[in-house]
């Protein structure tokens, strides 16, 4: 247990150190970094991604992942657009979109946990399906133009100088930290990710846990979709484009592992902060946007290789490879 604890600390240390380095670099190089406008846009880019990263981290901990969260986010924006167009009151919009997101998550959970389809293939498939469904709504949603004022307040509103979405993120951080560390179900996720066969033999209902994790991920993705759509004030077709990649890289940078059994809620937030600071750096230092894709891809490969190396070392130590 002590070893696990120190290891988690070390993993979070990496992401926080990288964040600090980027902040220092941006303070020195980019004059506008500490302005209010830039800090606001940083919040607005970190918060929705971090909300999704909690779900992704829970899945990574038990050794799964979800590539369809970007499409879920897009779908959430489109559905809230349709509902706003139909004149639904704001609480009905939020409730229905969250239900949609939960349904998307349950679909993924059904495919992966019940039908035992490989998580990557299943969620790539649903990614395409939900992207297609969302985009068929685009023409109808275009008529909306802008969301009603009280819906926009969800994304633009502030309390004590921070956006509502930042408060939501902080609240979820507290909830997920507690859930993963201290609740029996949270600990089961780690056991499941660490050794699935053993967890199954000990009588854990792995299918139910994985199903619930996927449902939660879909729910969080639609919540993030509402907040992001409210922030950009209209349903955009570009929402959620690369967000599944960003989330996955962020979680692994923040101490998660594709092999499962590792990770924490704080790590997820730190990883997302790192990714957002990186984007911010590209904007402030006026580097090419396309170059960002290259860098992110290379970071992903580096992260996978390091993760794989550590994993191989662990396997060799216990004599399994």
């Amino acid at each position, binding site marked *: 247990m002590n070893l696990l604890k120190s290891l988690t600390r070390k993993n979070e240390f990496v992401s926080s150190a990288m964040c600090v380095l980027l902040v220092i670099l941006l303070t020195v190089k980019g004059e506008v970094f500490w302005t209010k406008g830039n800090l606001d846009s940083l919040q607005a880019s970190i918060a929705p991604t971090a909300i999704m990263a909690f779900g992704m981290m829970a899945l990574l901990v038990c050794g799964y992942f979800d590539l369809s969260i970007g499409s879920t986010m897009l779908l959430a924006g489109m559905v809230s657009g349709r509902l706003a167009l139909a004149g639904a009151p704001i609480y009905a919009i939020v409730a229905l979109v969250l239900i949609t997101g939960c349904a998307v998550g349950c679909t993924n959970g059904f495919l992966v946990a019940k039908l035992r389809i490989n998580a990557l*293939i299943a969620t790539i498939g*649903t990614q*395409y*399906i939900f992207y*297609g*469904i969302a985009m068929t709504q685009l023409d109808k949603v275009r008529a909306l133009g802008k969301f009603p004022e009280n819906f926009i307040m969800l994304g633009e509103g502030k309390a004590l100088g921070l956006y509502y979405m930042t408060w939501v993120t902080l609240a979820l951080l507290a909830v997920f930290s507690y859930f993963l560390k201290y609740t029996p179900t949270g600990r089961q996720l780690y056991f499941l990710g660490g050794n699935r066969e053993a967890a199954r033999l000990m009588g854990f209902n792995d299918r139910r846990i994985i199903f619930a994790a996927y449902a939660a991920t879909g729910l969080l993705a639609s919540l993030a979709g509402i907040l992001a759509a409210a922030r950009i004030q209209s349903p955009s077709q570009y929402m959620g484009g690369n967000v599944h990649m960003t989330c996955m890289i962020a979680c692994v940078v923040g101490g998660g592992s594709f092999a499962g059994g590792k990770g924490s809620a704080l790590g997820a937030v730190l990883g997302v902060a790192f990714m957002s600071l990186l984007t911010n750096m590209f904007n402030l230092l006026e580097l090419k946007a396309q170059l960002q894709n*290259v860098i992110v891809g290379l970071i*992903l490969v580096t992260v996978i290789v390091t993760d794989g190396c550590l994993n191989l070392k662990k396997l060799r130590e216990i004599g399994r490879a």
Partner: protein
Amino acid sequence: MGEDTGRQLAAGRAEKFSFASWTIVYLLAALFIFLALTRNAFFTFSNIHSILHSVSFNFYAAIGFTLLIIMGELDLSVGSMFGFGGAMMGFFIFMYKLPAPTAIALTIAASALVGLASGFLIARFRLNSMMVTIGVMMAIKGVNWILVNRFSGRQFPASARRFVSVDVLGIKWTIILMIAIALALEILLAKSRHLKQLYYIGHNFDTTILYGLNANAVKCACFAISAAMSAFGGVLMTARLAHPNVTVGSNLEISIITAAVISGASIFGGRGSILRTMLGVTFVFTLQNGMTSYNINTYVQQIILGVILILAIYLDIRANSAAGERR
């Protein structure tokens, strides 16, 4: 039956020819008959010819993919390598003013290096190939954007355009090459000592290493082939379009996974055949052609393709568990 070699070895019994593994033939035939009966313009020589012409480009990207899927590896970077072929060809032709053949040769060599690099990482560190190739996919996509934006709107010279649409015996040479490669590899996979190794590796990786096969080298080589052949397909496609384009090869990976799985390859490895992959690719692209001729929205087409992919994978899992394999 080539694709059962690994399995026969493990089970110690010879399996008979089964019609079930050729489901793709029935599917393709049904699709052709349906479209021929309902659409007037479908069953003409020129339409079928042009469908097969674009199928052939995409089939080149599916060759390496099939070899890898036989070994239980997935290469999701095929789509971006397809685009990379076009972008690099543009790079060499516009920036260095190289003649077309040199440019194409250099493009393919560069792509093979990229494939070799990802293959090396995957084999050396035993990484999840899907994850690594997703990373490669993103990086290469970024490179494609940068390259294509630098020479947007410029056309290839005639020497770099004409060669794709040369006819041999009244048929485009790319179609003939496609069929030749499919037949040759199909026979080699069943008979050749070297290519049979792929099935053994896909069936039981650890045992093949104990028996002294250099499985890692084989994997590296196949990743290089996959990248190089995808780029080759991309070069041909771009030459047909006459200018590099960012959309070349986008979403290609999902079409190819669907094609491979629908034609009976298993994502768990040990099964798969080039000839049937060719039929699978033809099926997927004919389906897209048919849906377009019915004026179905592209986004709805995406939904349908996603559903087909998940169904095909589900049936694959059902077939595997019916065969008594626990995964």
